[in-house]
């Protein structure tokens, strides 16, 4: 398979500029195209406005970059169809945390004229921001850890670490677990999860246990939330234009196997404190039937299907229309 990511000394990685690839997937595959800046977009990002168009800058992770679907099927692209005279600059970066997305904003978005900034936070990102490493498989299929940039909250200060992140991966077996740095493995209870998935009991187990995939939101004092909050406060505070924060729910919340109250409350508090616009799409998503909501993710891959992207775009369009200026300069 084609290599689609390249090392970046600030963000950790970006897409390989101008790469065109078809990524094999349980659906057969999906088409990826990146622009010259190294983001998954059909158009290049230019500083000046496109005459007659309003512009949104969008940051997020794989749900926003569109893992599992082709470029045109993503909610960012659908949003352009939902909202007249709109172009969306999608800076979504798969596997990234909100910390890396903020770094990408600083590195790549400065000087780009726009009307609205959208920060799409997959709620699970809260685990990524406290991690110094992410696990990947190397060419031989062995687990290796790649360093990522991350912030530590020291007092009220955000201190950037792993900057620049090391280029070379660390074999997982050689990782020093006692060094105090965390590895994001993409979920909780890794060993147990493997067992339950192997037994085909994942759905049932989650229902019975009322599994909470992101307990970090349970308390406003949780250190992970404190860090997330600090990053978002700084990001929102430094941005001169309207900011929308959109917490993207995991499927557990969309399919109502887990209670979303805690994370929703945390983001409401954030919006109240910063004055940003909160777009919480969960209510709109829950309006779909249970069968439709199950079809919002693939059979195996938990990433959003084209149907989920379409629903998300429809939901987001309402907020975006409200914030966009009627006319463009």
């Amino acid at each position, binding site marked *: 398979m*084609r*290599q689609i*990511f*390249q*090392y970046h000394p600030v963000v950790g990685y970006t897409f*390989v*500029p*101008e*790469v*065109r*690839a*078809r990524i*094999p997937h349980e*659906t*057969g*595959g999906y*088409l990826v*195209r990146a622009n010259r800046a190294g983001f998954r977009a059909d158009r290049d990002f230019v500083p000046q406005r496109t005459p007659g168009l309003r512009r949104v800058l969008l940051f997020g992770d794989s749900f926003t970059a569109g893992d599992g679907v*082709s470029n045109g099927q993503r909610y960012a692209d659908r949003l352009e169809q939902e909202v007249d005279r709109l172009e969306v600059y999608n800076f979504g970066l798969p596997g990234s945390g909100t910390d890396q997305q903020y770094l990408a904003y600083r590195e790549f978005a400065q000087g780009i004229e726009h009307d609205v900034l959208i920060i799409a936070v997959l709620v699970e990102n809260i685990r990524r921001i406290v991690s110094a490493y992410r696990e990947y498989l190397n*060419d031989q299929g062995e687990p290796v850890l790649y360093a990522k940039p991350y912030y530590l909250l020291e007092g009220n200060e955000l201190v950037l670490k792993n900057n620049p992140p090391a*280029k*070379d991966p660390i074999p997982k077996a050689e990782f020093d677990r006692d060094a105090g740095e965390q590895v994001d493995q993409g979920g909780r209870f890794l060993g147990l999860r493997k067992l339950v998935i192997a037994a085909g009991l994942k759905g049932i187990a989650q229902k019975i246990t009322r599994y909470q995939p992101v307990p970090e939101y349970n308390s406003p004092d949780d250190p992970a939330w404190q860090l997330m909050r600090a990053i978002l406060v700084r990001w929102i505070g430094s941005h001169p234009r309207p900011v929308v924060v959109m917490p993207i729910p995991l499927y557990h919340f969309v399919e109502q196997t887990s209670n979303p109250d805690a994370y929703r409350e945390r983001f409401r508090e954030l919006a109240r404190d910063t004055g940003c616009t909160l777009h919480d799409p969960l209510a709109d998503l829950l309006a779909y039937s249970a069968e439709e909501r199950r079809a919002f993710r693939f059979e195996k891959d938990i990433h959003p299907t084209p149907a989920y992207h379409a629903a998300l775009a429809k939901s987001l369009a309402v907020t975006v229309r409200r914030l966009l200026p009627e006319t463009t300069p």
Partner: protein
Amino acid sequence: MSKTILGISAFYHDSAAAVVRDGEIVAAAQEERFSRKKHDPRFPRHAVNYCLEEAFVEPSELDAIVFYDNPVLTLDRVVKSCLTAGSGALDQFETAARSLLGVKVWIQDYVRQTVGSLGKEGRLLFTEHHMSHAASAFYPSPFHEAAILVADGVGEWATTTLGAGRENQVELFQEIDYPHSLGLLYSAFTSFCGFKVNSGEYKLMGLAPYGQPHYADKILEHLIDVRPDGSYRLDMRYFGYLDSHKMTNERFHELFGGPPREAESNITRREMDLAASVQVVLEEVMLKMARHLRERTGLSQLVLAGGVALNCVMNGKLLREKIFDELWIQPAAGDAGGSLGAALMAHYHYFGGQRKYNPTGRDSQHGSYFGPAYSVHETKALLDRKGYPYEHVPDPEQRAAKIAAELAAGKIVGFCSGRMEFGPRSLGARSIIGDPRRVDMQQVMNLKIKYRESFRPFAPAVLLEDVAEYFDLHCESPYMLLVDQVQPQRQRAMDWAKFRSGDDNMLEVISQPRSDIPAVTHVDYSARVQTVHPDDNPEFARVLRKFKELTGCSVLVNTSFNVRGEPIVCTPQDAYLCFMRTEIDLLVLDECLLHKSAQPAMEDSQDWRKEYELD
């Protein structure tokens, strides 16, 4: 009428996929290049993925998906053949039935599941095996009309087919059916001489010039009955493939003086003479068939496909005999090319598309560079991530000059540049290249780079405009499918006395300089020529030009970028691995040059020589 069509060939050998858009070939590749399993027969999911990537099309947007043969007819052939052969064929039937009933018959569901959709047609289209070959030979050719000759091992029933193409139509009008097969006759000798069937045929062809055709009469007397029109029948009492898993049987072995040669054992005079003999017989049959075809069609141009068309010695003979004025051979003449033919068939026959021609008057195969390319961004991303030192030389002229200087200094270069070739030959996109003037180049390349048998010759790549200076060839040969003689004034006299007096050591012959370009001159002064046209591969042509400027020689040794048993490299990563595992001095990854001396030692824990099954 814009039509995008995916063609697939699979489940026999050399699975492949191709995409054709409005009659133009957009992408084509063999599965083996991605799966790294030589002649991979499995469903070409990687190749399909690549073709859809190159065309940048969703499967649901495809106007049609076409399979290159008809599994039901193949099943018919297997059942009837096994019934004819009786109880001895039970094992063979079980194997064939498992394959056919397992996947082939359910191919439509399989494609839907693997590709993700059956396209706008909502069903899989099927063509017939030899029709796919015929289409792959005719439509990309530059000819408005041409006679068509397809010869291979076996498809459904047909093993040899004659036909004609006119504009957007292909018609087949005569066929010879299984078990009578020129391809299988040649494969039987390949197997008997200790080489792998469907892989070692090329070695047998390369071995032939060392031998004398002493067995030709015996073959014609006992094994094959050839009629004046080139039609033929095999005497199946000598062959094993009808009722066993072996190509030959005891009667065959007795006829040729004992049991088959063991693989990897010494090659004796018998194998050399058998190779020469079956080559002579093959040529005789094909020439007769070509004469008959010329007479029957009245057409002056001929196109060829099917595995037998990869026998470039025979092709050269066909050209020299001037039975037809012009000849065009599909470079992916084997089953891989069936994927391309199937897609082209659908475009012209099913959708009625107007014939497309290359406006330059050359063919529409465009050098057969239909595989993946890797951008400089992708290459640098790999090299930077891995920490492999490289020199980025973005200026094409400067880059070619640097490469040519290394070649002139005797260095061996791994050249991975642009889109990968479709077909079994490396044509300057995934090639190992060297200086052909050096006396030791053939042995060095065979033993230290390719790790293969030392008798095997290498092919020359020559600038098209200079071909006549070096070879007795008066037409283009862009696909290395024509063999002709090195010009007499370049030849050097050879001493065959010791070898012919009974010594089987081919090194006696190989080590003698045979011309002023010895590395690409076979022991009979023949050469398997690739002419390089700058329209097809400007990068490779530039290197040849710079080499000529430096040395006065516009020829390079061009061999496939792989080691023995390994599929030709596809990605920069494959190329780097092969580079580090062999004694290649310089690796060219498009704009990036990597010198072996600057590379870190590679941690290669695997015993990589066991990674690839010897071919």
